[in-house]
């Protein structure tokens, strides 16, 4: 076709599409009424077809560029934006997430094994060679965690609600950062995530040995278990997501690696996102229960809380969400 005829005929519609597009880009698709929406779709398809035609028959480079940009903008405005539905989100948390968790249970077990290995190593090192292991393995700010002296009473004052809020927000943000970092480090072929699991295990093991040595295993258990039963799994979930990401890079598939990584990335994010509510619960329990002075909450009560919380977590991931397809893509 002759370029000038082509331009002449199609120009008004392109102009119109530009106008509508300006509006959509400014204030969104929802501001169009029904007729305008239909018109927008029609104009877009016509422009796309014009672009196709221009690419084939017209050698006018600038025209193709112009149409390309126009169609590109319209394409972005029309496709690929899903609305977030709060109700669907809640439904996903209740039923979808446990299924996602079970789908990647193997990764979770691997993260757990790394953590356990770290714990064992830390414990043994700290127990048998305390003077070397403790200064080297513990981060500097943790050296202050010490068992109380013999017969010393717990005199820590009870925290007010304000302090409780501050402390639990601190714990939540800190743990969430660690969990998300474990996921993000999956991009180092999973090595970073694996190391984080192992290292967190080491810290736990070293501290464990410190308290065992002082004969205070009960203090250690009550101080760590009430929140640890959800906090540690949450962190392990972060590690599992990281390992999944690493696997996505390493594993050979019949399709390009970049595609596989993008697919796995979304799955892994789905997996790690479920750790956030767990971390909220863990932070509240840690600030309110585990760190509460002994004269306020007896250690038996703390252990009971740990039991209940731990059982509810297991029940959540093991019992819910069977029999319906979980959200997110199935592994092909």
């Amino acid at each position, binding site marked *: 076709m002759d370029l000038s005829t082509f331009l002449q005929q199609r120009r008004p519609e392109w102009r119109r599409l530009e106008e509508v597009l300006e509006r959509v880009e400014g204030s969104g698709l929802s501001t169009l009424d029904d007729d305008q929406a239909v018109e927008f779709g029609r104009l877009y398809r016509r422009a*796309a077809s014009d672009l196709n035609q221009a690419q084939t028959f017209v050698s006018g480079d600038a025209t193709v560029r112009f149409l390309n940009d126009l169609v590109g903008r319209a394409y972005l405005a029309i496709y690929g934006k899903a609305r977030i539905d709060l109700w669907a989100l809640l439904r996903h948390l209740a039923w979808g997430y446990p299924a996602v968790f079970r789908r990647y249970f193997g990764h979770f077990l691997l993260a757990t094994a790394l953590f356990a290995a770290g714990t064992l190593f830390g414990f043994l090192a700290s127990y048998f060679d305390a003077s070397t292991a403790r200064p080297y393995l513990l981060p500097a700010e943790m050296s202050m965690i010490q068992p109380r002296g013999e017969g010393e009473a717990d005199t820590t004052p009870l925290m007010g609600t304000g302090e409780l809020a501050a*402390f639990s927000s601190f714990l939540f943000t800190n743990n969430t950062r660690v969990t998300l970092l474990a996921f993000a480090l999956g991009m180092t072929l999973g090595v970073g995530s694996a190391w984080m699991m192992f290292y967190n295990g080491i810290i736990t093991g070293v501290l464990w040995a410190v308290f065992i040595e002082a004969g205070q295993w009960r203090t250690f258990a009550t101080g760590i278990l009430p929140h640890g039963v959800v906090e540690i799994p949450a962190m392990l979930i972060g590690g599992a997501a990281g390992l999944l990401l690493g696997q996505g890079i390493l594993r050979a598939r019949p399709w390009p690696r*970049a595609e596989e990584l993008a697919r796995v990335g979304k799955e892994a994010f789905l997996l790690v996102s479920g750790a956030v509510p767990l971390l909220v619960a863990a932070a509240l329990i840690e600030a309110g229960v585990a760190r509460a002075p002994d004269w306020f909450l007896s250690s038996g009560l703390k252990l009971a809380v740990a039991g209940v919380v731990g059982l509810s977590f297991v029940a959540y991931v093991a019992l819910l969400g069977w029999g319906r397809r979980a959200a997110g893509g199935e592994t092909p």
Partner: protein
Amino acid sequence: MILHEVLTTEKVPITYRVAGLGARSLAWLVDLLLSALLGLIGACFGMVLDVARPGLGAGVTILWVFAVFLGYSVLFEWLWQGQTPGKRLLGVRVIEWRGTAVSFVASAVRNVVRMADVLPLGYGLAFVVAACNRENRRLGDLAAGTLVVYVERQAKPILALHAGGDADRARLSLWRQRLGTLGREQKQALLDLCLRRDQLRVGERARLFRTTAAFFQERLDLAPDEYESDEKFVLQLAAALGDRAG
């Protein structure tokens, strides 16, 4: 310039221009300043609250700063179709690999994986990885299946045709008649030159228009007005050609 080609659902190929690292770094700098400002505002509010209720203000501040740190980019990219204020200023936007607008999950993935990108120091990993692939994608982009492209809206070539179209009617009809004798390729070349003239450097532009004007003067036996520049002459020819069918 690196192009990224996608196939729309209508099976029409469109190309996006991949954004350079410079534009992206500047956009990031703007966003950094803005989010620091947001964090500061929250901190001020928290300090006031802390006076009224010790501890609560600190808690709110901690949560707010964390929310800004994680949520700023995700929220903007999701609501503004792949743009944050910084990206909007620099004219870049995040799109999915297949050319559609970035989804919430993809934006969340690319911004959470940023935590790995900033390692070991000042986006070191991100720069190395981005330099090693064709589309300048950092780790977050790879994990999310996204890339950053320039927003295209500078092209208005159709309007350019009318820049010089004020020839009088009799002359126009004569011109049209003569122009009708041109071959398709010659017409095309004429239009292309006019459409793309803004992309040419001054010297080349002048030279090309001089040659073109000379060629068409001879070929069509037309003379430009007195004091009319070569470029203006050629533009009027193109305008007459563009109006021919109408």
